[in-house]
């Protein structure tokens, strides 16, 4: 099981060169790839960075089968 490491997230941010609404969707894909889910901390942080509400980001995330918002057993 992969766990959320703030440092890994910081590195992802750095290698992407900043997150805006224009690349948020693909960035969330990278977060999902790194941790196996999109952690709550990340959603909070990205909401601030992009000026979108957390609800808006969760609304999108939970509508895609390939995004997870919780650690899944065996994931």
């Amino acid at each position: 099981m992969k766990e959320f490491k703030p440092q890994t997230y910081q590195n992802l941010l750095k290698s992407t060169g900043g997150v805006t609404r224009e690349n948020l969707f693909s960035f969330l894909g990278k977060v999902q790839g790194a941790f196996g889910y999109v952690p709550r901390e990340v959603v909070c942080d990205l909401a601030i960075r992009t000026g979108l509400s957390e609800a808006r980001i969760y609304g999108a995330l939970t509508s895609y089968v390939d995004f997870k918002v919780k650690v899944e057993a065996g994931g």
Partner: protein
Amino acid sequence: MKESKVLTQRVGKYEPLDIKAYQALDGLNGLRRALAMAPELVIEQIRQSGLTGRGGAGFPTGLKWASAAQEKQEPKYFICNADEGELGTFKDKVLLDGDPWAVLEGILIAAYAIGAEQAYIYIKGEYEKTAKLWEKLVGEAEKAGLLGEGILGSEFSVSLQVVRGKGPYIAGEEFALISSLETRRAMSKLKPPYPTEKGLFGKPTVVNNVETIANVPVILAYGVEEYRRLGIEEDPGTRLFSLSGDVKKPGVYELEMGSGTLKELINELGQGTAAGQLIKAVQPGGGTSAFLGRASIGCGLTTQAIRKAGSGIGTAAVIVYEEGKSAIDIVKGLLEFYGAESCGRCVPCRIGVVKMKEIVDTLSCGNGTEQDLTRLRQIGKACVAASTCGMGQAFPLPVLSALELFPEDFEAVVQKVPA
């Protein structure tokens, strides 16, 4: 029947990340020509070439570009739709994996023509290897001066973002794809306004399919006249046919438009049906196209001829069904897929697909009545007439055509005297 390899001429001939090898095979000639022209002239060339969209709807590409180019709003976006989700379609993958530079070249020409500085390629989630290849390709392209500021020494700048899809079938639809890129649910929208007026983030956006965009460098490199020698007057160029289902040799075959018949494609290139049975039905344009019966498969491989035969060329995904299968089982499989994939935005599709699936389930259990067949037709027709996007308008077509072509399959399971 012979294949004409135009778009697929370089597939398998070079290491996908090697730009030098691509150039050695006459790559980038189209882009160089385009950059030497004014953007309006590039659009004019595409318009004259008669190129139409290869993603299913068949909209004229030049017209789409022109309407985005004339919009005053900035910035503009270009999106290459590599989310090929239509059942039976796997042609774009061949180009994305086998000749990615040609697709990139097409993207650059398109972005230049419409005046976009940001381009996206939205790759189907299941194509993981393809997405990884493209992520590396972007790095290589930046090194080679093909992405970023001042491309090939010109004043044109563009950057490309590789986006991986996250599952839904509907994300292949223009507006749903745009919603997805905006980090929203993948859902269609009422048109107009079209994406060329109000697309991604409300800005003018062109969305083109991979195969469509792979035609662009060919048109620019060889010239309109040479390109129009391929295919026929109403249908210039070639098409990649994804042949699948009950055939001995499934695969992607590139054919000039009008170069033969559906039957020849199945019997010669596909080497006949898998178990040697007669053909029962064929879907010539992917999972949402109407069935053609055995009597109609002599039709030519052109948009017009297939439409006249009673179906549509769609994504040119030819799915073959042998005798021995019940039409009910076939449509049941299709409805199961589309039922899970309806985005739920509009009522006819959201409810219609579920109701139709329920009726077909009842029929396949042997509990159906004549009334159920009537209802199946009614709901199907209502969905076609009232749905917002291409999916809702098209998924009932195979069901409706199966009811016409194979009434005996349905009659056989219907209870004559209602219980």
